[in-house]
């Protein structure tokens, strides 16, 4: 049958690659013959051939004895994919479509295998195929495809390379743990693969960042979904440990990625992962030296870096949806009706399970609250650059009063999530940290809350305290803000009833 012919051709390819180096002319002749004989001429045959190759690669893995080279066929297949992408001239199909076609066939076989065999599915051959594909592509693209003589052709491949990584990212998005739990650990290993993650972080023009945020979001959503308070399944806690190491490595190699994408990552991070939250929010731009946050002489307004507006890669205004107009109109011309419209739109249609510290469900739209708070901060920082600092560092400014109204109109839950959203902006020295530090300090000493004062103050203390009792790293902005409150003469935290009532808390505050 046609398929048996495909099996035969692929088997010959595997044998050939074991006998000659892959840059041997025989390899190119073999591919030339595959084309001339029509093995990969039509789309239909490409599908047939790919199906045969992936089935043989997986089959030979399952049948080989573990001690031997179980990945020979998978490695040969990944080499073939790279060769076909490099040596072919693409006319009817584009190079991207060709790669997507082959990966789609692999996805179908992968899905059937995963679905059919239940728990005896083995992720390793599929992992190896993609891992080797990344390694072989890296080798082919070394020195900007130096092995390709024709310059115009080289340029075509150089332009395609970012596309290659984004296509791989798209298929990894399809393979995410919530969709294919049997592939979870291979998946985490692939998104952090040495030939993938550094590349996606450093593609020119941040061309890989959107897909990378998507993949990290997939991971965080999976963890959020299955991190219940008490019995976190062992496998999920292993997932967490892996995620923590990956984020630490990203914070070390490419802190700018976390600095610019904190908003989206935190929208999907389970709030119980307080240390992981600190890791993400503590990322600071490379080469930035932090002033000592415990320095009693430190004045945040004197810190030069606080004049600079940090870049936010994904503009939260896109998440404001129908509230964009009311919020922006309010910032321009404040009115009670607009602020009420904002405050009443913060609730979700129903309760949603969410594992937090001290609560199990959420009835407010935390993502919307995060978006409003950060959007207001971004607009405030821009306003400061346009006009003067006093325009926004004053409790009468619309930026400040919008947040105030969200607290005074809101219930305890709203207040909690608004203060959390503000605390998420207290990071390294920048214009947002500076402004939100101002906001939180004034929230704390304000007399305008009436009988809600104690509640709002307790929420502020709790939000800051939970971030400093967590193991390091601690965010510079959090430490500076908390230190100022602890030293504040206007209001001594130690005397507040909600502190005195709980000895352990009182003891910690006194120690701090």
């Amino acid at each position, binding site marked *: 049958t046609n398929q048996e012919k495909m099996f035969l051709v692929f088997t010959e390819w595997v044998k050939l690659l074991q006998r000659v*180096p892959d840059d041997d002319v025989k390899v190119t002749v073999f591919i030339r013959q595959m084309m001339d004989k029509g093995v990969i001429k039509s789309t239909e045959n490409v599908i047939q051939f790919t199906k045969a190759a992936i089935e043989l690669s997986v089959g030979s893995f399952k049948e080989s004895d573990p001690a031997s080279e179980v990945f020979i066929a998978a490695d040969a297949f990944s080499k073939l994919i790279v060769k076909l992408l490099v040596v072919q001239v693409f006319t009817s199909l584009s190079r991207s479509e060709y790669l997507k076609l082959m990966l789609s066939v692999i996805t179908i076989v992968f899905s059937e295998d995963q679905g059919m065999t*239940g728990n005896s599915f083995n*992720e390793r051959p599929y992992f*190896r195929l993609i891992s080797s594909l990344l390694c072989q592509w890296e080798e082919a693209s070394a020195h900007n495809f130096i092995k390709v003589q024709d310059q115009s052709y080289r340029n075509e491949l150089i332009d395609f390379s970012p596309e290659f990584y984004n296509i791989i990212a798209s298929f990894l998005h399809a393979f995410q743990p919530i969709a294919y739990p049997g592939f979870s650990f291979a998946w985490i290993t692939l998104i952090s693969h040495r030939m993938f993650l550094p590349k996606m972080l450093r593609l020119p023009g941040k061309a890989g960042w959107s897909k990378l945020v998507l993949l990290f979001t997939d991971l965080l959503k999976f963890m959020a979904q*299955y991190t*219940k308070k008490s019995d976190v399944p062992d496998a999920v806690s292993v997932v967490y440990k892996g995620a923590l190491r990956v984020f630490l490595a990203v914070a070390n190699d490419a802190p700018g990625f976390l600095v610019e994408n904190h908003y989206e990552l935190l929208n999907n991070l389970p709030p119980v992962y307080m240390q992981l939250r600190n890791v993400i929010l503590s990322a600071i731009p490379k080469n930035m030296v932090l002033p000592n946050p415990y320095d009693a002489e430190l004045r945040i307004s004197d810190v030069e870096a606080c004049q600079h507006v940090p870049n936010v890669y994904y503009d939260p205004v896109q998440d404001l949806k129908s509230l964009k107009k009311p919020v922006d109109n309010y910032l321009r011309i404040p009115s009670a009706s607009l602020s009420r419209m904002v405050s009443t739109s913060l609730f979700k249609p129903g309760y949603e399970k969410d594992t937090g510290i001290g609560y199990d469900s959420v009835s407010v739209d935390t993502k919307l609250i995060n978006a409003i708070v950060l959007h207001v901060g971004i607009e405030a920082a821009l306003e400061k650059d346009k006009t003067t600092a006093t325009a926004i560092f004053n409790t009468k400014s619309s930026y400040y009063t919008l947040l105030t109204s969200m607290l005074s109109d809101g219930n305890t839950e709203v207040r909690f999530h608004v203060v959390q959203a503000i605390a998420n902006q207290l990071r390294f020295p920048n214009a947002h940290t500076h402004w939100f530090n101002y906001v939180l300090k004034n929230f704390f000493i304000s007399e305008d809350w009436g009988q809600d004062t104690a509640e709002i103050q307790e929420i502020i203390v709790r939000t800051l305290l939970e971030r400093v009792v967590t193991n390091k790293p601690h965010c510079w902005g959090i430490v500076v803000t908390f230190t100022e409150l602890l030293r504040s003469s206007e209001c001594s935290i130690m005397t507040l009833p909600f502190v005195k009532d709980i000895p352990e808390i009182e003891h910690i505050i006194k120690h701090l």
Partner: protein
Amino acid sequence: TMPAEMAAQLESSLLNCPDSLDADTPKLYQTPLSLPHPTSIFFPNET
């Protein structure tokens, strides 16, 4: 709560978790000199 079927799949994924050897760069063609050869048991067998 994670369905039992899903928990089992996640469990089997953990058991089959690829390690750094799986992630290493493929070596298809071994030059004859680097082919396996019965060397003395006293020789180091790790690079």
